[in-house]
Protein backbone atom coordinates (compact mmCIF):
# COMPACT_ATOMS: atom_id res chain seq x y z
CA UNK A 1 0.00 0.00 0.00
CA UNK A 2 2.70 2.44 0.90
CA UNK A 3 4.47 1.80 -2.42
CA UNK A 4 1.35 2.42 -4.48
CA UNK A 5 0.42 5.54 -2.56
CA UNK A 6 3.94 6.84 -3.10
CA UNK A 7 3.53 6.23 -6.83
CA UNK A 8 0.15 7.96 -6.80
CA UNK A 9 1.57 11.13 -5.32
CA UNK A 10 4.75 11.25 -7.44
CA UNK A 11 4.72 14.15 -9.91
CA UNK A 12 4.88 13.09 -13.56
CA UNK A 13 8.16 13.83 -15.36
CA UNK A 14 8.40 17.27 -16.93
CA UNK A 15 7.57 18.04 -20.56
CA UNK A 16 9.91 16.64 -23.20
CA UNK A 17 10.16 16.66 -27.02
CA UNK A 18 7.93 14.02 -28.63
CA UNK A 19 11.05 12.72 -30.33
CA UNK A 20 14.53 13.00 -28.92
CA UNK A 21 16.89 15.26 -30.88
CA UNK A 22 14.08 16.92 -32.85
CA UNK A 23 13.74 20.18 -30.97
CA UNK A 24 14.91 22.23 -28.02
CA UNK A 25 12.42 23.40 -25.38
CA UNK A 26 14.57 26.32 -24.22
CA UNK A 27 15.23 28.27 -26.29
CA UNK A 28 12.30 26.97 -28.36
CA UNK A 29 13.68 25.88 -31.73
CA UNK A 30 14.11 22.92 -34.05
CA UNK A 31 17.37 20.99 -34.17
CA UNK A 32 19.08 19.85 -37.36
CA UNK A 33 22.46 18.57 -38.38
CA UNK A 34 25.15 20.60 -40.15
CA UNK A 35 27.91 19.06 -42.24
CA UNK A 36 31.24 20.60 -41.33
CA UNK A 37 32.68 19.44 -44.67
CA UNK A 38 30.19 21.15 -47.02
CA UNK A 39 28.02 23.29 -44.73
CA UNK A 40 24.72 21.66 -45.69
CA UNK A 41 22.02 21.81 -43.02
CA UNK A 42 19.37 19.07 -42.74
CA UNK A 43 16.20 18.66 -40.68
CA UNK A 44 15.66 16.40 -38.91
CA UNK A 45 19.26 15.54 -38.01
CA UNK A 46 20.72 12.59 -39.91
CA UNK A 47 23.80 10.46 -39.47
CA UNK A 48 25.07 11.45 -42.91
CA UNK A 49 25.17 14.53 -45.09
CA UNK A 50 22.66 14.17 -47.95
CA UNK A 51 24.59 16.72 -50.01
CA UNK A 52 28.14 15.30 -49.86
CA UNK A 53 27.54 11.87 -48.24
CA UNK A 54 30.02 12.53 -45.45
CA UNK A 55 29.35 10.57 -42.26
CA UNK A 56 31.97 12.42 -40.19
CA UNK A 57 31.86 15.86 -38.69
CA UNK A 58 28.09 16.24 -38.50
CA UNK A 59 27.16 18.65 -35.71
CA UNK A 60 23.88 19.56 -34.08
CA UNK A 61 22.62 22.97 -35.08
CA UNK A 62 19.66 25.07 -33.99
CA UNK A 63 17.43 26.21 -36.83
CA UNK A 64 15.98 29.67 -37.32
CA UNK A 65 12.43 30.07 -36.12
CA UNK A 66 11.24 32.40 -38.90
CA UNK A 67 9.63 30.75 -41.89
CA UNK A 68 7.83 31.40 -45.16
CA UNK A 69 4.87 29.36 -46.44
CA UNK A 70 6.06 27.73 -49.69
CA UNK A 71 2.82 25.82 -50.24
CA UNK A 72 -0.16 24.74 -48.15
CA UNK A 73 -3.45 22.92 -48.11
CA UNK A 74 -6.55 22.89 -45.96
CA UNK A 75 -7.06 19.25 -45.05
CA UNK A 76 -10.79 18.50 -44.88
CA UNK A 77 -10.72 14.69 -44.75
CA UNK A 78 -8.39 12.62 -42.62
CA UNK A 79 -8.37 9.15 -41.07
CA UNK A 80 -10.60 8.60 -38.02
CA UNK A 81 -9.39 10.35 -34.88
CA UNK A 82 -7.85 13.32 -36.69
CA UNK A 83 -9.81 16.55 -36.29
CA UNK A 84 -10.40 18.53 -39.50
CA UNK A 85 -10.03 21.06 -40.98
CA UNK A 86 -6.39 21.98 -40.42
CA UNK A 87 -3.75 23.73 -42.47
CA UNK A 88 -0.70 21.74 -43.50
CA UNK A 89 2.17 23.58 -45.15
CA UNK A 90 5.62 23.34 -46.60
CA UNK A 91 7.51 25.97 -44.64
CA UNK A 92 10.88 27.32 -45.78
CA UNK A 93 13.37 28.46 -43.14
CA UNK A 94 15.44 30.78 -45.34
CA UNK A 95 18.05 31.42 -42.64
CA UNK A 96 18.85 27.71 -42.45
CA UNK A 97 18.13 26.67 -46.04
CA UNK A 98 15.68 24.05 -44.78
CA UNK A 99 12.14 23.18 -45.98
CA UNK A 100 9.90 21.20 -43.66
CA UNK A 101 6.29 20.14 -43.25
CA UNK A 102 4.16 21.40 -40.39
CA UNK A 103 0.70 22.62 -39.53
CA UNK A 104 -0.05 26.35 -39.44
CA UNK A 105 -2.46 27.55 -36.78
CA UNK A 106 -3.58 30.79 -35.22
CA UNK A 107 -5.61 32.07 -38.17
CA UNK A 108 -8.56 31.15 -40.31
CA UNK A 109 -7.56 28.59 -42.96
CA UNK A 110 -8.69 30.87 -45.81
CA UNK A 111 -6.32 33.59 -44.58
CA UNK A 112 -3.21 31.50 -45.27
CA UNK A 113 -1.32 32.61 -48.39
CA UNK A 114 1.74 31.57 -50.36
CA UNK A 115 4.77 33.55 -49.25
CA UNK A 116 3.28 34.42 -45.89
CA UNK A 117 5.67 34.89 -42.95
CA UNK A 118 5.28 32.47 -40.08
CA UNK A 119 7.17 31.64 -36.91
CA UNK A 120 7.81 28.45 -35.00
CA UNK A 121 5.63 27.58 -32.05
CA UNK A 122 6.07 24.62 -29.72
CA UNK A 123 2.83 22.86 -28.89
CA UNK A 124 1.62 19.80 -26.96
CA UNK A 125 1.80 16.58 -29.02
CA UNK A 126 0.05 14.25 -26.58
CA UNK A 127 1.10 12.48 -23.41
CA UNK A 128 3.76 9.81 -22.90
CA UNK A 129 3.15 6.52 -21.12
CA UNK A 130 4.89 7.88 -18.00
CA UNK A 131 2.52 10.86 -17.86
CA UNK A 132 4.96 13.41 -19.29
CA UNK A 133 3.61 16.01 -21.67
CA UNK A 134 5.12 15.56 -25.14
CA UNK A 135 6.06 18.67 -27.09
CA UNK A 136 5.94 19.05 -30.85
CA UNK A 137 5.97 22.00 -33.24
CA UNK A 138 3.82 24.00 -35.61
CA UNK A 139 3.87 27.50 -37.10
CA UNK A 140 1.74 30.60 -36.55
CA UNK A 141 1.56 33.93 -38.38
CA UNK A 142 4.67 35.99 -37.65
CA UNK A 143 4.33 38.81 -35.16
CA UNK A 144 1.06 37.61 -33.65
CA UNK A 145 1.14 37.33 -29.86
CA UNK A 146 -0.14 34.09 -28.37
Amino acid at each position, binding site marked *: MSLSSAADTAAPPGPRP*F*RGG*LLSLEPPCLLGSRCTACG*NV*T*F*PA*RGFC*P*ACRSVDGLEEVTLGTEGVV*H*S*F*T*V*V*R*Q*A*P*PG*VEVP*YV*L*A*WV*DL*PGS*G*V*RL*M*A*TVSGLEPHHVE*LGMSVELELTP*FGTAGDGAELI*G*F*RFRPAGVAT
Partner: protein
Amino acid sequence: MSLAPAHVAGVGMVRFGKYPADVTLERMALGAGRAALVDAGADLGQVDALYVGHVFGGPVAGQRIAAQLGLDGKPVSNHENYCASGATAIREAWVALSAGLHDVVLVVGVEKMTDRVSGGVRPDPGDLDAAVGYVMAAGHAMSARRYMADHGATREQIAAVAVKNHAHSVHNPFAQYQKPISLEQVLAARQIAEPLGLLDCSPISDGAAAVVLCSPAGLRRLGISGPVPRVLGVGLVSGSVLTGLGDLNAEDVSGRAGEEAWKLSGVGPDEIDLVEMHDCFTIAEIVRMEGLGLVPLGQGAAWAADGHTALGGRLPVNPSGGLLSRGHPVGATGVAQVCELTWQLRGTAGGRQVDGARTGLAYCKGGTVNGTDGGSVTTVVMTR
Protein backbone atom coordinates in the same frame (compact mmCIF):
# COMPACT_ATOMS: atom_id res chain seq x y z
CA MET B 1 24.45 -5.05 -68.29
CA SER B 2 21.43 -6.13 -70.27
CA LEU B 3 18.90 -8.59 -68.90
CA ALA B 4 16.74 -10.77 -71.14
CA PRO B 5 13.10 -9.69 -71.47
CA ALA B 6 10.26 -11.46 -69.70
CA HIS B 7 7.55 -12.71 -72.05
CA VAL B 8 3.94 -12.14 -71.00
CA ALA B 9 2.14 -15.42 -71.63
CA GLY B 10 -1.09 -14.47 -69.90
CA VAL B 11 -2.85 -11.80 -67.87
CA GLY B 12 -5.97 -11.67 -65.75
CA MET B 13 -7.85 -9.40 -63.38
CA VAL B 14 -10.87 -9.25 -61.19
CA ARG B 15 -12.81 -6.02 -61.55
CA PHE B 16 -11.60 -3.48 -59.01
CA GLY B 17 -14.21 -2.12 -56.61
CA LYS B 18 -15.61 -2.16 -53.12
CA TYR B 19 -16.47 -5.71 -52.10
CA PRO B 20 -18.00 -7.15 -48.93
CA ALA B 21 -15.72 -8.66 -46.31
CA ASP B 22 -16.27 -12.21 -47.55
CA VAL B 23 -14.60 -11.30 -50.84
CA THR B 24 -11.23 -11.83 -49.25
CA LEU B 25 -7.70 -11.08 -50.37
CA GLU B 26 -7.17 -14.76 -51.11
CA ARG B 27 -10.40 -15.04 -53.08
CA MET B 28 -9.58 -12.06 -55.31
CA ALA B 29 -6.01 -13.29 -55.86
CA LEU B 30 -7.39 -16.69 -56.78
CA GLY B 31 -9.71 -15.11 -59.36
CA ALA B 32 -7.00 -13.04 -61.01
CA GLY B 33 -4.38 -15.80 -60.83
CA ARG B 34 -6.68 -18.41 -62.39
CA ALA B 35 -7.66 -15.96 -65.15
CA ALA B 36 -4.01 -15.31 -66.00
CA LEU B 37 -3.19 -19.04 -66.03
CA VAL B 38 -6.15 -19.73 -68.32
CA ASP B 39 -5.11 -16.84 -70.58
CA ALA B 40 -1.62 -18.38 -70.78
CA GLY B 41 -2.94 -21.91 -71.25
CA ALA B 42 -0.82 -22.94 -68.28
CA ASP B 43 -1.45 -25.79 -65.85
CA LEU B 44 -0.55 -25.42 -62.18
CA GLY B 45 2.23 -27.95 -62.55
CA GLN B 46 3.93 -25.80 -65.17
CA VAL B 47 4.42 -22.83 -62.81
CA ASP B 48 7.78 -22.59 -61.06
CA ALA B 49 7.14 -19.81 -58.53
CA LEU B 50 4.69 -17.21 -57.23
CA TYR B 51 5.51 -13.53 -56.63
CA VAL B 52 2.94 -11.49 -54.71
CA GLY B 53 2.78 -7.72 -54.26
CA HIS B 54 0.60 -6.35 -51.43
CA VAL B 55 0.77 -3.82 -48.61
CA PHE B 56 -2.01 -4.53 -46.12
CA GLY B 57 -2.30 -8.30 -46.63
CA GLY B 58 -0.41 -9.26 -43.49
CA PRO B 59 2.35 -11.82 -42.99
CA VAL B 60 2.78 -14.51 -45.67
CA ALA B 61 -0.26 -13.39 -47.65
CA GLY B 62 1.42 -14.85 -50.73
CA GLN B 63 1.66 -18.27 -49.12
CA ARG B 64 -1.99 -18.07 -48.06
CA ILE B 65 -2.83 -17.34 -51.69
CA ALA B 66 -0.62 -20.19 -52.92
CA ALA B 67 -2.47 -22.60 -50.66
CA GLN B 68 -5.79 -21.57 -52.27
CA LEU B 69 -4.46 -21.38 -55.80
CA GLY B 70 -2.70 -24.75 -55.85
CA LEU B 71 0.85 -23.39 -55.94
CA ASP B 72 1.62 -24.54 -52.39
CA GLY B 73 5.10 -25.92 -51.97
CA LYS B 74 6.57 -23.63 -54.65
CA PRO B 75 8.89 -20.70 -53.95
CA VAL B 76 6.60 -17.84 -52.86
CA SER B 77 7.75 -14.33 -51.99
CA ASN B 78 5.93 -11.24 -50.73
CA HIS B 79 6.88 -7.77 -52.01
CA GLU B 80 6.01 -4.50 -50.31
CA ASN B 81 6.89 -1.10 -51.80
CA TYR B 82 3.55 0.55 -50.97
CA CYS B 83 1.76 1.54 -54.21
CA ALA B 84 4.67 0.17 -56.26
CA SER B 85 4.45 -3.28 -54.63
CA GLY B 86 2.91 -5.06 -57.62
CA ALA B 87 5.42 -3.62 -60.06
CA THR B 88 8.24 -4.48 -57.68
CA ALA B 89 7.05 -8.09 -57.65
CA ILE B 90 7.14 -8.04 -61.47
CA ARG B 91 10.68 -6.67 -61.38
CA GLU B 92 11.85 -9.46 -59.08
CA ALA B 93 10.16 -12.05 -61.29
CA TRP B 94 11.82 -10.58 -64.39
CA VAL B 95 15.23 -10.74 -62.72
CA ALA B 96 14.70 -14.36 -61.67
CA LEU B 97 13.67 -15.37 -65.21
CA SER B 98 16.62 -13.54 -66.68
CA ALA B 99 18.97 -15.24 -64.24
CA GLY B 100 17.68 -18.66 -65.28
CA LEU B 101 16.28 -19.45 -61.85
CA HIS B 102 12.74 -20.00 -63.18
CA ASP B 103 11.07 -20.34 -66.59
CA VAL B 104 7.36 -19.80 -65.81
CA VAL B 105 6.21 -17.63 -62.91
CA LEU B 106 2.93 -16.16 -61.76
CA VAL B 107 2.91 -12.62 -60.39
CA VAL B 108 -0.14 -11.48 -58.42
CA GLY B 109 -0.82 -7.96 -57.15
CA VAL B 110 -3.66 -7.86 -54.66
CA GLU B 111 -5.16 -5.65 -51.98
CA LYS B 112 -8.15 -5.77 -49.67
CA MET B 113 -8.56 -2.20 -48.45
CA THR B 114 -12.20 -1.43 -47.83
CA ASP B 115 -12.39 -3.37 -44.55
CA ARG B 116 -9.16 -1.92 -43.14
CA VAL B 117 -8.49 1.56 -44.54
CA SER B 118 -10.74 4.61 -44.17
CA GLY B 119 -10.29 8.34 -44.66
CA GLY B 120 -7.25 7.92 -46.89
CA VAL B 121 -3.85 6.28 -46.70
CA ARG B 122 -0.94 7.81 -44.80
CA PRO B 123 2.68 7.05 -44.04
CA ASP B 124 3.85 4.60 -41.41
CA PRO B 125 3.11 6.03 -37.94
CA GLY B 126 6.85 6.05 -37.25
CA ASP B 127 7.51 8.55 -40.03
CA LEU B 128 7.85 12.18 -38.93
CA ASP B 129 5.45 13.37 -41.64
CA ALA B 130 2.68 11.24 -40.14
CA ALA B 131 3.30 12.83 -36.75
CA VAL B 132 2.72 16.36 -38.12
CA GLY B 133 -0.57 15.49 -39.85
CA TYR B 134 0.43 14.33 -43.30
CA VAL B 135 -2.03 12.37 -45.40
CA MET B 136 -1.31 11.52 -49.03
CA ALA B 137 -3.98 13.87 -50.37
CA ALA B 138 -2.38 16.78 -48.49
CA GLY B 139 0.98 16.26 -50.14
CA HIS B 140 -0.56 16.28 -53.61
CA ALA B 141 -2.70 19.29 -52.74
CA MET B 142 0.43 21.26 -51.80
CA SER B 143 2.03 20.05 -55.03
CA ALA B 144 -0.98 21.31 -56.99
CA ARG B 145 -1.09 24.73 -55.35
CA ARG B 146 2.62 25.27 -55.98
CA TYR B 147 2.32 23.98 -59.56
CA MET B 148 -0.44 26.49 -60.32
CA ALA B 149 1.60 29.34 -58.83
CA ASP B 150 4.82 28.40 -60.62
CA HIS B 151 3.42 27.61 -64.06
CA GLY B 152 0.21 29.62 -64.33
CA ALA B 153 -1.81 26.43 -64.60
CA THR B 154 -5.49 26.56 -63.68
CA ARG B 155 -7.58 24.43 -61.36
CA GLU B 156 -9.68 23.50 -64.40
CA GLN B 157 -6.64 22.21 -66.30
CA ILE B 158 -5.69 19.96 -63.37
CA ALA B 159 -9.27 18.71 -63.09
CA ALA B 160 -9.16 17.83 -66.81
CA VAL B 161 -7.03 14.80 -65.90
CA ALA B 162 -9.97 13.28 -64.02
CA VAL B 163 -12.39 14.05 -66.86
CA LYS B 164 -10.04 12.44 -69.39
CA ASN B 165 -9.33 9.30 -67.38
CA HIS B 166 -12.99 8.71 -66.54
CA ALA B 167 -13.84 9.11 -70.23
CA HIS B 168 -11.34 6.34 -70.99
CA SER B 169 -12.73 4.08 -68.24
CA VAL B 170 -16.08 3.76 -70.02
CA HIS B 171 -14.38 1.14 -72.19
CA ASN B 172 -12.68 -0.80 -69.39
CA PRO B 173 -14.77 -3.67 -67.96
CA PHE B 174 -12.28 -4.09 -65.08
CA ALA B 175 -12.56 -0.48 -63.87
CA GLN B 176 -14.25 0.34 -60.57
CA TYR B 177 -15.94 3.35 -62.22
CA GLN B 178 -17.03 3.15 -65.84
CA LYS B 179 -18.95 6.38 -66.28
CA PRO B 180 -17.89 9.70 -67.77
CA ILE B 181 -17.76 12.73 -65.46
CA SER B 182 -17.89 16.42 -66.31
CA LEU B 183 -15.44 19.17 -65.46
CA GLU B 184 -18.17 20.80 -63.41
CA GLN B 185 -18.55 17.63 -61.34
CA VAL B 186 -14.83 17.55 -60.55
CA LEU B 187 -14.79 21.21 -59.54
CA ALA B 188 -17.93 20.94 -57.41
CA ALA B 189 -16.95 17.74 -55.60
CA ARG B 190 -16.48 17.73 -51.84
CA GLN B 191 -13.10 19.17 -50.84
CA ILE B 192 -10.58 16.63 -49.51
CA ALA B 193 -7.40 18.72 -49.30
CA GLU B 194 -7.73 22.10 -51.01
CA PRO B 195 -7.52 22.64 -53.91
CA LEU B 196 -8.17 18.93 -54.54
CA GLY B 197 -11.64 17.47 -54.23
CA LEU B 198 -13.04 13.96 -54.10
CA LEU B 199 -12.82 13.40 -57.87
CA ASP B 200 -9.14 14.43 -57.93
CA CYS B 201 -8.42 11.42 -55.70
CA SER B 202 -8.23 7.74 -56.57
CA PRO B 203 -10.61 5.65 -54.47
CA ILE B 204 -9.95 3.10 -51.75
CA SER B 205 -10.49 -0.20 -53.54
CA ASP B 206 -10.32 -3.96 -53.43
CA GLY B 207 -8.92 -5.94 -56.32
CA ALA B 208 -6.35 -8.25 -57.83
CA ALA B 209 -4.39 -8.58 -61.07
CA ALA B 210 -2.04 -11.29 -62.29
CA VAL B 211 0.45 -11.98 -65.06
CA VAL B 212 2.23 -15.14 -66.21
CA LEU B 213 5.82 -14.27 -67.14
CA CYS B 214 8.09 -16.65 -69.05
CA SER B 215 11.60 -17.15 -70.33
CA PRO B 216 11.89 -18.46 -73.93
CA ALA B 217 12.09 -21.97 -72.44
CA GLY B 218 8.97 -21.21 -70.45
CA LEU B 219 7.08 -20.21 -73.61
CA ARG B 220 8.06 -23.55 -75.14
CA ARG B 221 6.89 -25.35 -72.00
CA LEU B 222 3.47 -23.71 -72.42
CA GLY B 223 3.40 -24.48 -76.15
CA ILE B 224 3.37 -20.79 -77.14
CA SER B 225 5.13 -20.28 -80.46
CA GLY B 226 3.98 -16.88 -81.74
CA PRO B 227 5.32 -13.55 -80.47
CA VAL B 228 3.82 -12.21 -77.24
CA PRO B 229 4.30 -8.84 -75.52
CA ARG B 230 7.52 -8.59 -73.57
CA VAL B 231 8.65 -6.77 -70.45
CA LEU B 232 11.98 -5.30 -71.60
CA GLY B 233 12.98 -3.95 -68.23
CA VAL B 234 11.71 -2.65 -64.90
CA GLY B 235 13.39 0.36 -63.31
CA LEU B 236 13.29 0.83 -59.56
CA VAL B 237 14.53 3.82 -57.58
CA SER B 238 13.80 5.28 -54.17
CA GLY B 239 13.33 8.87 -53.11
CA SER B 240 16.45 10.76 -52.13
CA VAL B 241 16.84 13.11 -49.19
CA LEU B 242 16.16 16.63 -50.39
CA THR B 243 18.37 19.55 -49.53
CA GLY B 244 17.76 23.26 -49.92
CA LEU B 245 14.71 25.15 -51.15
CA GLY B 246 14.30 23.92 -54.74
CA ASP B 247 11.28 23.21 -56.94
CA LEU B 248 8.69 21.29 -54.91
CA ASN B 249 7.61 19.55 -58.13
CA ALA B 250 11.08 18.80 -59.51
CA GLU B 251 10.23 15.05 -59.48
CA ASP B 252 13.91 14.15 -59.66
CA VAL B 253 12.85 10.70 -58.43
CA SER B 254 10.68 10.29 -61.54
CA GLY B 255 13.50 11.48 -63.76
CA ARG B 256 15.85 8.93 -62.25
CA ALA B 257 13.26 6.17 -62.64
CA GLY B 258 12.88 7.12 -66.29
CA GLU B 259 16.62 6.98 -66.85
CA GLU B 260 16.65 3.49 -65.30
CA ALA B 261 13.85 2.43 -67.62
CA TRP B 262 15.59 3.67 -70.76
CA LYS B 263 18.89 2.10 -69.70
CA LEU B 264 17.43 -1.30 -68.79
CA SER B 265 15.11 -1.56 -71.79
CA GLY B 266 17.17 0.05 -74.53
CA VAL B 267 14.05 2.04 -75.43
CA GLY B 268 14.16 5.82 -75.61
CA PRO B 269 11.46 8.18 -74.32
CA ASP B 270 10.55 9.21 -77.88
CA GLU B 271 9.58 5.59 -78.65
CA ILE B 272 6.83 5.42 -76.01
CA ASP B 273 3.37 5.19 -77.62
CA LEU B 274 1.30 5.15 -74.42
CA VAL B 275 1.72 5.43 -70.67
CA GLU B 276 -0.07 3.81 -67.77
CA MET B 277 0.66 6.49 -65.17
CA HIS B 278 0.18 6.40 -61.41
CA ASP B 279 -2.54 9.05 -61.19
CA CYS B 280 -3.33 8.50 -57.52
CA PHE B 281 -4.30 12.19 -57.70
CA THR B 282 -4.91 14.34 -60.79
CA ILE B 283 -1.87 16.55 -60.18
CA ALA B 284 0.35 13.48 -59.76
CA GLU B 285 -0.18 12.43 -63.39
CA ILE B 286 0.90 15.90 -64.50
CA VAL B 287 4.09 16.34 -62.48
CA ARG B 288 5.22 12.73 -62.95
CA MET B 289 4.87 12.88 -66.74
CA GLU B 290 6.97 16.04 -66.62
CA GLY B 291 9.50 14.44 -64.28
CA LEU B 292 9.92 11.56 -66.72
CA GLY B 293 10.61 14.07 -69.46
CA LEU B 294 7.65 12.87 -71.53
CA VAL B 295 5.84 16.21 -71.26
CA PRO B 296 7.62 19.60 -71.21
CA LEU B 297 8.05 21.15 -67.75
CA GLY B 298 5.06 23.23 -66.74
CA GLN B 299 2.88 22.12 -69.66
CA GLY B 300 1.35 18.93 -68.30
CA ALA B 301 -1.87 20.54 -67.10
CA ALA B 302 -2.37 22.30 -70.42
CA TRP B 303 -1.65 19.04 -72.25
CA ALA B 304 -4.43 17.33 -70.30
CA ALA B 305 -6.90 20.16 -70.92
CA ASP B 306 -6.00 20.29 -74.63
CA GLY B 307 -6.47 16.54 -75.13
CA HIS B 308 -2.83 15.72 -75.90
CA THR B 309 -2.84 12.94 -73.29
CA ALA B 310 -6.28 11.57 -74.26
CA LEU B 311 -6.95 8.60 -76.54
CA GLY B 312 -6.19 9.83 -80.05
CA GLY B 313 -3.91 12.55 -78.69
CA ARG B 314 -0.17 13.08 -79.02
CA LEU B 315 0.71 10.72 -76.14
CA PRO B 316 -2.24 8.82 -74.62
CA VAL B 317 -1.94 8.50 -70.84
CA ASN B 318 -4.06 6.02 -68.89
CA PRO B 319 -6.24 4.54 -71.62
CA SER B 320 -7.41 2.13 -68.88
CA GLY B 321 -8.91 5.00 -66.91
CA GLY B 322 -5.96 5.09 -64.56
CA LEU B 323 -6.13 4.78 -60.82
CA LEU B 324 -8.77 7.53 -60.70
CA SER B 325 -11.30 5.30 -62.51
CA ARG B 326 -9.97 1.73 -62.45
CA GLY B 327 -9.54 2.06 -58.68
CA HIS B 328 -6.42 1.75 -56.58
CA PRO B 329 -6.07 -1.42 -54.52
CA VAL B 330 -2.51 -0.36 -53.84
CA GLY B 331 -0.61 -3.65 -54.19
CA ALA B 332 -2.57 -4.62 -57.29
CA THR B 333 -2.12 -1.43 -59.29
CA GLY B 334 1.31 -2.11 -60.79
CA VAL B 335 0.22 -5.52 -62.05
CA ALA B 336 -3.04 -4.10 -63.42
CA GLN B 337 -1.00 -1.58 -65.41
CA VAL B 338 0.96 -4.44 -67.00
CA CYS B 339 -2.31 -6.23 -67.81
CA GLU B 340 -3.46 -3.07 -69.58
CA LEU B 341 -0.20 -2.66 -71.51
CA THR B 342 -0.45 -6.31 -72.56
CA TRP B 343 -3.98 -5.85 -73.92
CA GLN B 344 -2.91 -2.65 -75.67
CA LEU B 345 0.15 -4.31 -77.24
CA ARG B 346 -1.92 -7.32 -78.32
CA GLY B 347 -4.36 -4.89 -79.92
CA THR B 348 -7.28 -6.31 -77.93
CA ALA B 349 -8.15 -3.28 -75.78
CA GLY B 350 -11.44 -2.64 -77.57
CA GLY B 351 -12.90 0.85 -77.28
CA ARG B 352 -9.87 2.11 -75.39
CA GLN B 353 -7.29 0.74 -77.86
CA VAL B 354 -4.37 3.08 -78.66
CA ASP B 355 -3.99 2.78 -82.43
CA GLY B 356 -0.70 1.23 -83.45
CA ALA B 357 0.53 0.77 -79.88
CA ARG B 358 3.97 -0.82 -80.07
CA THR B 359 5.82 0.29 -76.94
CA GLY B 360 4.41 1.33 -73.58
CA LEU B 361 5.52 2.51 -70.16
CA ALA B 362 3.89 1.77 -66.80
CA TYR B 363 4.86 3.97 -63.85
CA CYS B 364 4.12 3.51 -60.14
CA LYS B 365 5.11 5.67 -57.20
CA GLY B 366 4.70 4.13 -53.80
CA GLY B 367 4.69 5.74 -50.39
CA THR B 368 6.40 8.75 -48.88
CA VAL B 369 9.38 9.09 -46.56
CA ASN B 370 9.97 12.25 -44.53
CA GLY B 371 12.49 14.58 -46.11
CA THR B 372 12.67 12.74 -49.45
CA ASP B 373 10.99 13.10 -52.82
CA GLY B 374 9.18 9.79 -52.55
CA GLY B 375 9.18 6.21 -51.37
CA SER B 376 9.63 3.92 -54.35
CA VAL B 377 9.18 4.46 -58.08
CA THR B 378 8.94 1.69 -60.68
CA THR B 379 9.03 1.98 -64.46
CA VAL B 380 8.01 -1.00 -66.61
CA VAL B 381 8.83 -0.82 -70.33
CA MET B 382 6.94 -3.23 -72.60
CA THR B 383 6.91 -3.86 -76.33
CA ARG B 384 4.93 -6.12 -78.61
